[in-house]
């Protein structure tokens, strides 16, 4: 009892959407994440940068509950989600757009979107429709509702993955390299959509990204190296030096 109280009192401000503290994660015996601390203020966009293989995806998977940390705590809003299963975390308001998009392949685009409703806390009603805002953000999806998810192009799948995450009306959107392997014109579309989502819903965002242009949209950045956070600050102060060191430009 004493321990949990002290943890709660340690967290000074309650307007943090997500707080990760002292996270250590292993794949088998290899130590991937080392004492990671990271927090996302409510309504802000935070960007995590770092070269390939430093552990960014591992951190996001741990936040979603796909990997369990050996030590450390994850707070979402004002409660600890460290012990929850991924589906409970999604239901508590985290929308996840994974690296590689992970569209359900042999299910139609419409059903992929409907599956996004599973994350609503009250669950999914049987006859729900897709809100018009989704198509305003991603018009291309409207023409493809009956296609199989696996038949879409990479850019379309990425848009579908973001739209699917938004269907559950999350409070935190977690995006893992949403522009990886996507043609430049679509990258701009995706960037604009994310910007618009933030402006319209006030959602908090955790973004892993390699494109400097996109990184600059964020309020704050964290830089990762060899599984640890080595620098952080406001993106306005993002120096050329840091960029050289942590972004594969």
């Amino acid at each position: 009892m004493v321990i949990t109280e002290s943890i709660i009192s340690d967290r000074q401000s309650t307007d943090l959407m997500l707080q990760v503290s002292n996270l250590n994660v292993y794949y088998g015996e290899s130590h991937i994440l080392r004492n990671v601390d990271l927090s996302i203020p409510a309504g802000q966009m935070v960007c995590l940068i770092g070269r390939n293989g430093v552990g960014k995806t591992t951190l996001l998977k741990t936040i979603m509950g796909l990997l369990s940390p050996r030590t450390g705590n994850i707070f979402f809003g004002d409660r600890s989600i460290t012990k929850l299963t991924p589906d409970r975390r999604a239901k508590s308001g985290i929308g996840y757009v994974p690296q590689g998009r992970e569209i359900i392949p042999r299910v139609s685009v419409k059903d992929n979107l409907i599956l996004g409703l599973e994350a609503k806390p009250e669950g999914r009603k049987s006859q729900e429709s897709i809100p018009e805002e989704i198509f305003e953000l991603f018009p291309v999806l409207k023409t493809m509702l009956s296609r199989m998810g696996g038949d879409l192009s990479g850019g379309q799948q990425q848009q579908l993955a973001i739209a699917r995450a938004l269907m559950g009306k999350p409070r935190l959107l977690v995006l893992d390299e949403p522009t990886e392997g996507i043609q430049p014109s679509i990258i701009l579309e995706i960037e604009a959509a994310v910007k618009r989502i933030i402006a319209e819903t006030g959602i908090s965002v955790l973004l892993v990204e390699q494109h400097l242009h996109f990184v600059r949209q964020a309020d704050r950045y964290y830089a990762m190296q060899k599984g640890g956070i080595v620098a952080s600050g406001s993106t306005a102060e993002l120096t050329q030096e840091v960029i050289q060191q942590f972004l594969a430009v």
Partner: protein
Amino acid sequence: MSTLIEGLFNGISIGSVLLIAALGLAIVFGLMGVINLAHGELMMLGAYATFVVQNVFKPLGEPWFSFYIIAAIPVAFIVSAIFGLILERGAIRFLYGRPLETLLATWGVSLILQQFVRSVNWLLIICLGIFCLLFFGGMQLLKSRADWESMRTKIVSLLLPLAAGVAIAFYFLLSQNSALTNAWFSARNVDVTAPAWLRGGVEVLGFQMPYARLFIIALTILCLMGVYWFLQRSAWGLRIRSVTQNRTMSSCLGIPTAKVDALTFALGSGLAGIAGCAVSLLGSVGPNTGQNYIIDTFMVVVVGGVGNLLGAVIAALGIGILNYLIGSGTLALFLTTISAPQSMIDFFLFFATSSMAKVMVFALIIIFLQIKPAGLFPQKGRTAEL
């Protein structure tokens, strides 16, 4: 000629039973990668459930007794589904991702279920009830304690022998009472008699099509349509398809995968129960009934290609028909009538018993799998399509 058609028809009706059972097996395998060796015993439970329903309806007299088989279908489904659910919650969910252990565990369960129907009596049920009441009731009561997590192993190791002890004590206390110790079914086979409207048949092209077999075929078509509708149209069906195709992402979307697993396992087991209900119309029912069908059911899944509805239909009908045509000697007889070479007739006569027919079908399947290792309709990639 008419014997050949008759053989085809009988083969199709046996294939239908295989198909219902294989559907359940394939759905479960596609979703969880679990090979359930107790599937045959779940069929057997469905058949016994049909027998019990028949006996319950018998004293009700005529207009009612005719329809017992209609009532038996949902009862068989529910009984097998409940046993399947207990099996999943009690054992299989702890073994996900460990196929060999799962295979062993479900095989053990199949032996337990066979012995269970041999020796089940009121006394056994009462003692099982007492044990469950004490053990699970006690667990529920103690769960509210604050230090539950840390005390868990201690409580279990105390409660388990205690509950078992009380249950066993009751067993010996009551074992003098012969009304309680009479076995319900005993080890001998029991017979389900088809209601009057399923006896007899229609005459088509000079041979009798038994109503009972037509009923089984109709039941199979209904089950197929029902499963298709459930998977393609219902909310839980969409969840099941999603988890089958991408388990981790499904859980990140908020789908409770443990619930989906349990539900799917119950559905697959329930289908085995319906298959058992159909089996009871084909012949007498015993503790080994499941064993007779399980191998053929596996063959259907393997030949059809895992998780493929159309493949399963074709494979089930093919295996059912081949088994019957060869095993009953129909093929040999047919060859005689068209005066085929004597050596060929002798060859098929040699295989014209039901066990030798199985040998031949098995050999054919092995040859087939050499040519198409992934079954009739191989899946592209890792995903299973239903």
